[in-house]
């Protein structure tokens, strides 16, 4: 530092001496003193630059310059408050939207799973193409468990189940899953209290044990450690509490489970009699921990090989049926993280891409503003260069100014993002896991800072490039507003505007496709009237309601009472509520048709459910033929059913189904096939979901075949949810220990079906709207600037007799040309990009011509409107003033 100061102190003197010596030399060579001095100076070069470069050798000059530039930049920004405000607002919108979406991506996609060394956890399954679903049954799992070399450990778990907990406060309906004893070991999770299941507890018919989660332990057991060893009743079966799961424990598949019980899985799931499967094949979910040496691809190969061996070991008559479900090539292995977030990833990445486009457009807009201003500042830049500022030095100055704007925009953007995140938390669909965890954490803040600086650099580049083109002579010589770089600046502005239009077209097309998908989805008729319908679930404890009579009486009584409630117009109950309904695949044999072959994959089957009389009226499911089930179909009458239209299409294409009979192995009587008579045909209802296909369905009467788990359905003349407590009261009047749960309106069920599509559509429409607004401002700015630059020329034209119409169309044509180029570019990009969101669309192709056409027209109209104001202004140029304007 001291050395530096000493060296620099003498620099001025050294340079003076140097030039003096050169001058003396020149004089000695015979030049005149003036000539000699001039030659010496020219030979030396730019003194200021030499001094500056020498100083730079020594120092942290860059820091001093930066502070200087920041001070200068802020002063310049203060001098043009409108530019500064518009630029900051534009950037704030872009950065805010990006930060908000990134916070969601950060919370959902970049989140690490809360398990030990989660990177080695995989989720494995067999995908059965003919069924369109995953199927791993006990035999396959046993094969995988005993024969694999790729996994350190492997575990299976059931789909979520429900249990009624009694013996700890008032009875409560809880969610639980059946898991193998190995599950917690695979995940690397240990109970915070007590122990994991023992192998004995996990054997078929082993002792009943239960693990509680932290929330349940605190709310129902007061966080009492002595709960370990206590016996509680789950569905009235005694279970011993053996442990408490750690606080914050997350179950798999983003599902919240209150408790875990041992799976007690048998090695094989078949009993074979007469070639017909007895019971059902239970679907298992499998999670495993890869050995450090193993790979996902290796695991897939091994599981496929094991599938083959499992198939070989099955009895002959099952091979044909199960070959389809077990065969080679079915095994799929996913990293657990990918499995957990796989279905939301495309949508989130699409949103991230969409906001990225918005930010690019914002950048282009601010760059345009900067360019317009840069022209006004050309003189300043020229003077700086003349005084010895290098190009790089000027560039640094301009970039510092841009960064100041960008950081201000970033700060404002963070405020916007904080607000947007709250909005997202409120309106985002529930099926995006961990979305509520999104916040402005450190990573998100760094992201915001990063994109702020990046945008500053990006839009700051435009004026820098423009400054490089500045020709000193032209600018310093000319006094007027015309200068050499205007053409270059305008070319760059046009390029930026074309880009903006292209990007907003892509966003608009994406938004159009998503809106159309959403409308297609909501236009699907669910097959019933969802308005003003309340549903709530009741499950009878089996040990108190063992006899069919008790079950029958309970629901018969309850439905009668509910129907009598004020505000209820009709009431019923069903085992399978539409959209949420559990469908089954029960083999049936139609009487009078050749004996069915149950060893082929698509054997004759239907989903068989029960409803109480009044159910169809409550949901307004239409009757197509015959009659509904009613009181005539009581306990002593022949078993009557109604079937849906899909059933008729499959089994009675050319016959009248009314009066026909079929047999199935299920029903009120146990053992052996029992006959069912078709008395009516009802309209198809969407059981599995709006977008799913409709399969053959049979609906029996709950008076003939009562069930313990039913969903109550009430059509009301008042607000459905206002009746929830009345329903609970009626249930408790019959059985005071019985909880109702899952109360909601059918409209809510329907709208949660389309919630994610609605969220995607709304978000992208919002971004596209923002993009179009910015693009419109951009094209307006460019045209307005062009008109102001051409005032002189326009004045001449008008003076020579050009009518306002000519001028108007001239300017509009120019704007439209820009818009057309942008639109063509945008169409090309859209063709390439929309196929990436194919998976998010429903009933509409990624290159839907109607959407492309409408969006193009809309955008061109917006562009035309944005050009209108400057074009109109051009017609009012006063030739006298314009010609004097120099």
């Amino acid at each position, binding site marked *: 530092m001291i*050395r530096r100061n000493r*060296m620099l102190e*003498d*620099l001025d003197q*050294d*340079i003076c*001496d*140097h030039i003096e*010596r*050169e001058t003396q*030399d*020149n004089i000695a060579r015979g030049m005149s003193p003036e000539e000699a001095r001039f*030659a010496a100076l020219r*030979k*030396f*070069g*730019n*003194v200021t*630059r*030499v001094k500056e*470069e*020498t100083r*730079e*050798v*020594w120092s942290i000059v860059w820091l001093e310059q930066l502070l200087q530039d920041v001070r200068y930049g802020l002063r310049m920004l203060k001098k043009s408050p409108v530019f500064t405000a518009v630029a900051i607002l534009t950037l704030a919108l872009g950065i805010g939207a990006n930060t908000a979406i990134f916070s969601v991506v950060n919370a959902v996609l970049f989140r690490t799973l809360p398990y030990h060394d989660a990177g080695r956890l995989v989720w494995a399954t067999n995908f059965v193409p003919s069924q369109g679903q995953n199927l791993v049954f006990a035999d396959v799992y046993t094969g995988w468990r005993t024969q694999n070399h790729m996994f350190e450990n492997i575990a299976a778990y059931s789909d979520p189940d429900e249990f009624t907990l009694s013996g700890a406060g008032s009875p409560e309906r809880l969610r639980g899953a059946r898991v193998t004893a190995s599950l917690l070991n695979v995940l690397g999770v240990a109970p915070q209290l007590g122990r994991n299941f023992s192998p004995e507890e996990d054997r078929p018919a082993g002792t009943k044990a239960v693990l509680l989660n932290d929330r349940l332990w605190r709310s129902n057991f007061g966080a009492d450690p002595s709960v370990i060893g206590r016996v509680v009743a789950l569905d009235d079966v005694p279970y011993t509490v053996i442990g408490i799961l750690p606080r914050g424990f997350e179950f798999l598949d983003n599902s919240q489970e209150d408790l875990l019980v041992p799976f007690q899985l048998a090695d094989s799931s078949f009993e074979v009699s007469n070639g017909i499967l007895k019971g059902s094949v239970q679907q298992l979910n499998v999670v495993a921990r890869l050995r450090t040496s193993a790979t996902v691809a290796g695991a897939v190969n091994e599981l496929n090989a094991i599938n083959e061996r499992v198939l070989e070991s099955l009895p002959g008559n099952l091979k044909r049926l199960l070959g389809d479900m077990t065969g080679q090539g079915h095994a799929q292995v996913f990293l657990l993280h990918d499995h957990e977030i796989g279905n939301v990833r495309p949508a989130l990445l699409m949103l991230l891409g969409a906001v990225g486009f918005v930010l690019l457009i914002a950048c282009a807009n601010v760059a345009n503003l900067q360019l317009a201003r840069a022209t006004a500042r050309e003189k300043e830049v020229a003077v700086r260069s003349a005084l010895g500022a290098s190009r790089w030095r000027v560039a640094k100055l301009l970039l510092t100014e841009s960064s100041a704007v960008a950081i201000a925009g970033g700060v404002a953007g963070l405020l916007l993002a904080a607000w947007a995140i709250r909005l997202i938390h409120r309106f985002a669909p529930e099926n995006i896991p961990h979305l509520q965890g999104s916040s402005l954490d450190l990573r998100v803040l760094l992201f915001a800072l990063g994109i702020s600086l990046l945008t500053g650099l990006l839009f700051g580049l435009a004026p820098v490039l423009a400054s490089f083109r500045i020709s000193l002579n032209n600018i310093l010589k000319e006094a007027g507003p015309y200068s050499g770089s205007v053409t270059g600046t305008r070319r760059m502005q046009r390029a930026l505007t074309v880009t903006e239009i292209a990007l907003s077209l892509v966003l608009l097309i994406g938004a159009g496709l998503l809106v159309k998908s959403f409308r297609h989805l909501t236009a699907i008729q669910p097959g019933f009237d969802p308005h003003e319908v309340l549903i709530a679930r009741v499950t009878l404890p089996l040990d108190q309601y063992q006899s069919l009579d008790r079950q029958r009486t309970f629901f018969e009584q309850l439905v009668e009472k509910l129907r009598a409630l004020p505000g209820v117009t009709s009431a019923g109950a069903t085992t399978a509520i539409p959209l949420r309904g559990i469908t089954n695949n029960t083999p049936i044999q139609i009487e009078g048709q050749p004996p069915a072959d149950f060893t082929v994959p698509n054997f004759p089957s239907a989903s068989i459910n029960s409803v109480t009389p009044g159910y169809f009226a409550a949901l307004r499911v239409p009757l197509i033929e015959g009659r509904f089930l009613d009181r005539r179909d009581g306990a002593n009458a022949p078993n009557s059913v109604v079937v849906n239209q899909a059933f008729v299409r499959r089994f009675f294409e050319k016959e009248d189904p009314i009066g026909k009979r079929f047999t199935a192995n299920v029903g009120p009587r146990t053992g052996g096939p029992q006959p069912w008579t078709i008395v009516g045909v009802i309209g198809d209802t969407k059981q599995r979901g709006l977008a799913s296909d409709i399969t053959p369905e049979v609906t029996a009467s709950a008076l003939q075949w009562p069930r313990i788990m039913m969903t109550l359905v009430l059509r009301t003349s008042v607000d459905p949810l206002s009746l929830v407590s009345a329903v609970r009261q009626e249930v408790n009047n019959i059985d005071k220990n019985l909880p109702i749960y899952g109360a909601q309106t059918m409209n809510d069920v329907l709208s949660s079906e389309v919630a994610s599509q609605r969220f995607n559509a709304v978000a992208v429409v919002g971004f596209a709207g923002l993009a179009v607004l910015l693009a419109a401002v951009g094209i307006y700015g460019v045209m307005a600037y062009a008109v102001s630059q051409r005032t002189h020329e326009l004045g001449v034209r008008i003076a020579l007799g050009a009518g306002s119409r000519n001028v108007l169309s001239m300017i509009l044509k120019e704007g439209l040309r820009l818009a057309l180029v942008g639109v063509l570019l945008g169409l090309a990009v859209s063709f390439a990009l929309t196929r990436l969101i194919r998976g998010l669309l429903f009933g509409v192709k990624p290159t839907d011509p109607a959407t492309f056409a409408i969006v193009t027209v809309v955008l061109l109209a917006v562009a035309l409107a944005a050009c209108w104001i400057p074009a109109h202004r051009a017609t009012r140029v006063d030739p006298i003033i314009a010609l004097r304007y120099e």
Partner: protein
Amino acid sequence: MSTKEEKDRIELLQGTLDLLILRTLLLGPAHGHAVAKAIEFNSESVLQVEQGSLYPALHRLIKRRWISVEAGTSENNRRAKFYCLTAKGRRQLLLQTNKWDKFAGAISRILRPARQGGES
């Protein structure tokens, strides 16, 4: 001033100016103007050095301690700064000269056959 035609002059390669300064100072301490003159004279004015660019280079070398500064008086008895080569600078010069010879040799090996081919 310009004893050579414009087309014969070549712009200095980045960093070669440092080398030329070191080479000049090998002959003994000199002040700035003398260094500039020596480079110009020795290269028969082929190398075009804006004299001003000498100063950042000199300071760069001082900062690296390849040269040092001494106060003295010049021919005409004026106070002047003399730049001298340090031991470290001498080592660097040797190192850099070897490097430069290799580089120049390689370039000429590449260029020469091409020119012969073009003429034949």
